């Protein structure tokens, strides 16, 4: 018994063809992306991805999945049960290695209306968890780790995808919101235990609406710490934002100009946190306060 998946996924600015004979992948894509998949074969694609079981005897002993894009197979086969994480990771790889038309920030990005908050950070800084919690509290999800910037305008383009919560973050999010829509648990991936948070339908619906950078917050999770939001000098913010840009050296001057425009347009902070609840309260207040200030500024 085999079900074949053959669909087109709209992922922000990218359109992705997906073919697969693996039922768990079809189920996961249906769960996470129901509103942004279609089957129209007559559209232009950025990437044509296939996930299949490799042939051979070994596959019968230990079932595996192999990721292919445009007829190339860049990775070793992975355990079959991880088909969905492999798809997500592989699509990110496609984007990260080819989409230099955009500046790519290693950052969670969320928006309040059309005003974006950028949360850059190295793995472990808590940016994914914080983005997830803010999203669950009503903020629009742009991306949990891909801040896509159009260099000409310094606008952020949404790329809303399932947010991969890792290990203790899963429980932290469930504690924050017991009704959080989480997908299946993947107990053994290369990043440990992973469960994805499904993006809200509204964020997917608005995935082609760019947002203007308004706040730049460098989160730092520290167990047991009080939530402290501290202003950050722009010179330092520039340096750290550039450091958190995947293709900064590749884009050269284009990236320099874009980072400069962003830093110029935003208020910059460092943010130490440990409790999600109060962390969200602090950042929501920041967003609300600044939105009022903008409104007031416009009235004057």
């Amino acid at each position, binding site marked *: 018994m085999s079900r074949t998946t053959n669909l087109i996924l709209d992922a922000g600015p990218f359109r992705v063809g997906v073919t697969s004979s693996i039922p768990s992948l079809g189920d996961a894509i249906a769960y996470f992306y129901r509103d942004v998949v279609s089957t129209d074969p007559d559209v*232009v*694609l*950025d990437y044509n991805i296939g996930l299949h079981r490799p042939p051979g005897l070994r596959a019968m002993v230990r079932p595996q999945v192999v990721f*292919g894009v445009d*007829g190339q197979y860049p990775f070793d086969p992975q355990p079959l049960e991880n088909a969905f994480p492999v798809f997500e990771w592989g699509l990110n790889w496609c984007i990260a290695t080819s989409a230099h*038309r*955009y500046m790519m920030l290693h950052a969670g990005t969320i928006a309040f209306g059309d005003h974006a908050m950028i949360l850059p950070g190295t793995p472990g800084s808590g940016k994914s968890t914080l983005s997830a919690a803010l999203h669950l509290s009503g903020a629009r999800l742009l991306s949990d780790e891909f801040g896509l910037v159009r260099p000409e305008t310094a606008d952020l383009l949404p790329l809303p995808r399932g947010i991969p919560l890792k290990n203790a973050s899963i429980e932290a999010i469930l504690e924050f919101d017991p009704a959080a829509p989480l997908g299946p648990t993947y107990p053994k991936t290369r990043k440990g235990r992973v469960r994805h948070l499904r993006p809200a339908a509204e964020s997917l619906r608005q995935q082609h609406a760019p947002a203007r950078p308004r706040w730049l917050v460098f989160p730092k999770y520290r167990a047991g710490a009080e939530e402290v939001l501290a202003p950050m000098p722009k010179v330092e913010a520039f340096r750290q934002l550039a450091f958190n840009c995947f293709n900064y050296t590749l884009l*050269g001057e284009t990236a320099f100009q874009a980072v400069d425009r962003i830093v110029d347009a935003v208020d910059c902070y460092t943010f130490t946190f440990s409790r999600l609840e109060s962390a969200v309260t602090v950042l929501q207040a920041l967003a609300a306060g600044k939105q009022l200030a903008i409104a007031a500024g416009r009235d004057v």
Partner: protein
Amino acid sequence: MSLLTDYLSDPACVRAWQPREWNRFLPLLRESRLMTRALCLAEAADLIDAVPARIVDQMIGARAQTRYVQVQAMRELGHVLRALQHDGIRVAALKGIAYRVADLPLAQWRGLSDIDLLIDRADLARAEALLLRSGWVVNGEFDDYDQRYYREWMHEVPPLRHAARETEVDLHHNLSPPVSRVRIDATALWREVVDVDGPGGLPVGVLSDCDMLLHNAVHLFMNDELRGGLRDVMDFRDLYMHFGALDAGFERRLLDRAETLQCGLPLYYAVDTAQRLVALAPGKVMVDGLSRHRPSPFPRLAMRWLIDHALAPDRTALRTTALANWLLFVRSHWIRMPKGMLLRHLLRKTMKRRAPVSTIQETPG
């Protein structure tokens, strides 16, 4: 032949394309490393509006990457030149890095993954030792057999890479292996080398216009790295058209030079291939001049089949592509090595690792 060669021959064909064509085209373009070339062609023909916006975006991304690797390669070349300059070792840039230092139109689109340099054979050991003393390391693992293979039978030493940087540096003492059937007199090349300003104002040589094309032709003729072969055919066409436009006597000079260096046959195949795959239009001088280098029908037609299937595959032709690639691989070694040596080499390589044909995979499942 394929959508890719259709496009390279006449970009205006895209006006008739539907999503189905674009979806077959983009993977071919990516694999052949011609994304940036394709963008420049579309721009030059004022066709950007006829290309779907998301494909243009992908091409713009590729151009950013091309520019970056060129900057990296130029910086690396600067390091190499500084390491070698006090010992009076002459260096000539080859292929991609040469197009960049010579500021040819190809520099607008030509990517490169390593820098290829020509060093006089008398200086080669000294150059290699100097680089190894100055922070470069051998890039990869080479056992005694591999070392001997390179040093005795090949026209280059094992590739080098600076310990702290990515770019590979290949030192050649000739354009073809010393044991091969196409033997080029390297001192004749050096007599025509032209010095240009390299990175940091350091002088670096480039081959003469004719020799650049003949190098490309020899490379295609002995090609065993086939996946990006069409890129080299485009280089040949682009160089040919550029130099031809600068000098009305270019084709005559190229023919004469091919005679001198005994590269008539490679030139024949290069012109024939570029003509058929990417619409090179050689003048009467060239067509007439090449007729005496034309092989007899069987090898000529067999070679055409091999080249077309290896260099211009459509997606549907994967199986014949794999076969053509394998035959060309064997053939390239056939030309390069005397038969006894070839047998020993292939036997050893076959036992040591899987055949190169396996780099082309069928869709599994």
